[in-house]
């Protein structure tokens, strides 16, 4: 290893840290949740209002619960249930997605602005 190696590795570590800070800092509680089907926004709901939604996806019906400013998938016909394991989402910009079923939800409001890399 050379000195330049150490410098480069430290610099890149700083970049990773900076991206992480920009991403996770300033995230705030969402006010609404948008439901997407295949990239198209099909509904927006207030997250303070308790709701039990059933949404038709590409391969079947998914259940989405909304309560206490949070939202999550609770049932899905997909195989690996990644969307369900993603759990409750509550911060602005947070996402839970079910790729096989073509459904996703994204929390809106709060600070949904991302960092320079994202925007």
């Amino acid at each position, binding site marked *: *290893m050379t000195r*330049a190696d150490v410098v480069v590795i430290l610099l890149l570590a700083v970049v990773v840290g900076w991206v992480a800070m920009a991403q996770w800092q300033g995230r705030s509680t969402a006010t609404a949740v948008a439901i997407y089907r295949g990239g198209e926004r099909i509904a927006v709901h207030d997250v303070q209002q308790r709701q039990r939604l059933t949404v038709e996806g590409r391969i079947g019906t998914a259940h989405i619960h909304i309560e206490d400013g949070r939202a999550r998938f609770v049932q899905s016909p997909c195989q690996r249930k990644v969307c369900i394991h993603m759990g409750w989402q509550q911060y602005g910009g947070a996402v839970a997605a079910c790729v096989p079923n073509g459904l*996703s939800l994204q929390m809106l409001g709060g600070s949904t602005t991302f960092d320079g890399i994202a925007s």
Partner: protein
Amino acid sequence: MALPADSDYRPDALDRRVAGLAAVAIAIHVLEAGFPSPVPGIKPGLANVVTLVALLRHGVACAAWVAGLRVLVGSLLVGSFLTPTFWLSATGAVSAFVVLAAAYAVGRAVPALRLSAVGLSVLAAMAHMTGQFMVAWTVFLPHAGLTVLLPVLLAAALVFGLASGLVALRVLDRMQRLERAPEAGGY
């Protein structure tokens, strides 16, 4: 075996080197594709060790061939040729290679900025991930939420880049020692 009549082509030293190194890289690539990954998009990328070895021992042209052949033949063997996986892999490889070649050129021009296999590997891994992420994000899943994953992916790239850089360093060191002892038969 007779060559076709119209062919005067004889493989030269570079061809043989490329063929040998690419074969090793492809084998690693295919083996790695068989291992399940806990998070999609994260894998160690040990095949890049071979690209690094090619670059540091034989220069940019050799490394470009090895990296290109690995992505192409690797995808044919795994069965992902021209699928999204292939495009992600290809973009990653191209981004990594551009950064790798640039860092290597800078190191040759300015000795103070010369990186060893470790620095080059970390740079390449980060470039690989960044390039791949950009394509995944702009082409396949243009969803702002995907950027939440970016820090995790970049951190993984940093760690795995460091790991394969250290492996490359050991491989280079071992190759050098084998060459100094000719009775060992070289590599």
